[in-house]
């Protein structure tokens, strides 16, 4: 249960807004962080915390694409296919990733490690092709780089190739 485990955090969230319902997206985020998706029981609990009805929580949650309404794999691989990434090669890369993972968009590998999503613009248009895996961005992708990222994630749960604070073009004198 969220309320017990995150008592202080939830109290801090609620204190930020004069109206409780404003904490809905933050709490849905928290629920998804906890379970990897937004479960029905989490939505019921959030409704209780915020004095809402479960349908009010559900109608809001389903508006936002980032909330997974079903369980997904350990790593959520989201590759951008919008125009700016499309111009610099996201289509063939997406094909390659499907082959490599052996799944199509919306599917999860049988070892439950990777769920693949093909998504619209993630605001990283100068460094495409790009993808987001869980919380991290990976940019200027090539097949070779994506292969390394998947290997590292599999082995250590982390990848050294994730983006740091963004700055492009990089300053010359560093």
């Amino acid at each position, binding site marked *: 249960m969220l309320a017990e485990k995150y008592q202080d955090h939830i109290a801090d969230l609620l204190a*930020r807004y*004069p*109206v409780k*319902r*404003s*904490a*809905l*997206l*933050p709490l*849905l*985020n928290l629920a998804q962080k906890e379970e990897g998706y937004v479960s029905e029981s989490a939505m019921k609990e959030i409704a209780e915390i*915020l004095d809402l009805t479960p349908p009010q929580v559900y*109608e*809001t949650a389903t*508006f*936002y*694409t*980032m*909330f997974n309404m079903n369980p997904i794999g350990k790593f959520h691989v989201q590759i951008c*296919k*919008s*125009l*700016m990434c*499309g*111009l*610099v090669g996201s289509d063939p890369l997406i094909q390659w990733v499907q082959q490599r993972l052996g799944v199509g968009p919306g599917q999860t590998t049988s070892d439950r490690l990777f769920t693949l999503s093909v998504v*619209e*613009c*993630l*605001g*990283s*248009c*100068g*460094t*495409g092709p790009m993808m*987001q895996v869980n*919380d*991290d*961005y990976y940019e200027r992708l090539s097949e070779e780089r994506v292969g390394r990222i998947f290997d590292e994630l599999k082995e250590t749960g982390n990848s050294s190739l994730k*983006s*740091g*604070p*963004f*700055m*492009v*073009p990089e*300053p010359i*004198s*560093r």
Partner: protein
Amino acid sequence: MPTHEKILLKNMDQPGYTGSLKDYEAVGGYQALRRVMKELAPADLIDIVKQSGLRGRGGAGFPTGVKWSFIPKDYTGPKYLCCNADESEPGTFKDRQLMERDPHQVLEGIAIACQAIGAETAYIYIRGEFRLGAKILEHAIDEARQARYLGENVLSSGVPIQVYVHAGAGAYICGEETALLESLEGKRGMPRVKPPFPATHGLYQKPTVVNNVETLANLPHIVTRGADWFASIGSPPKSTGTRIFCLSGHVKQPGNYEVPMGITFRELIYEHAGGMRGEKPLKAFIPGGASASFLTEAHLDVKLDFESVAQAGSMLGSGGVTVMEEGTSMVWAALRLMEFFYHESCGKCTPCREGSSWLVQVLQRIVDRRGRMEDLQVLADLCQNIVGRTVCAFGDAEIAPIVGTLQYWRNEYEDLIRESTAISTTSKELPVLALNS
């Protein structure tokens, strides 16, 4: 290459600059806020920003000082500032850099704006995917609170300014200011009918200003260096200051370039972004994010200011400049953007919700070589029945890629259609018919 003084990206350009509070203070950070809290009356501050000519960098280009002055002066209840960090317009990625590399510059701007309008609470509505940016901002807010630049009693002035980061959850429309407010209230992010405007009925129906990250980041510099200084940069009187242009697509060096408004697209693309990535010449470019109509190589000498780009039939918008080389299919490009708009339409207004789906279907069948010549009229009719008939500007935005490509590259549509194998106009496969058929 002509060099221009940077304002917003200047700090982070310095070797070793980390964006920490210490680094920011070392380059004069928070001196402007000090001045605002100690010496400047809010009305004078608003006047300075009006005189500077600063216009919103979020897309619409509304004069910032004027927007602030719409907040009712005699209102004593709570007022709010919302920093629009949704950065969801395809082609745009500047706010991310401002937040991740120099977060205190943004926070100082937020505090200054709060003081100008008398808001004690500000929310930074950041797109949900920007986890790193949100983390960096949270940390910077902690630092600024400890140093009393934010918090209960800002710089011992007795004035409280609380800033909170509020993450979205993946919806382009939440960049639209009233959808942002709905989302911040914990609802589906659907735009509100205006009027009433946020200045009187905004967040929780209280007076509210929504400003873009880049707009706010300009404020410390305007306060410190003066309205006249700012107004002398760029293309006065209507487009003052610099803009961060986000270059993407087929240029050699994509990225963020801060230049004074009023330089030409030619200079931006060929001198700053290094020109085209290969041998192929430029065919088309989008001047201001996905909502801005495509322009051609003939427009390269258009100046990058609000008026010039509008005169050329497009808009400066969010500053996202996407360059396409010869060989890029313009029908494909329009379809790609249309798929984005279809995916992101919030569904509130029928013309946008249904129209975006029909537009995708018609474009898709043309690309699939199943189109008919009448489809060009279908596209034009659909666009006409969307524009101006929706609650927010999304409707006007979504037709931009089609209107522009139909205007300049109609032949590409026709060529694809000529390659089509004949399909009866009444086929079930082609449900979208011309209005006059």
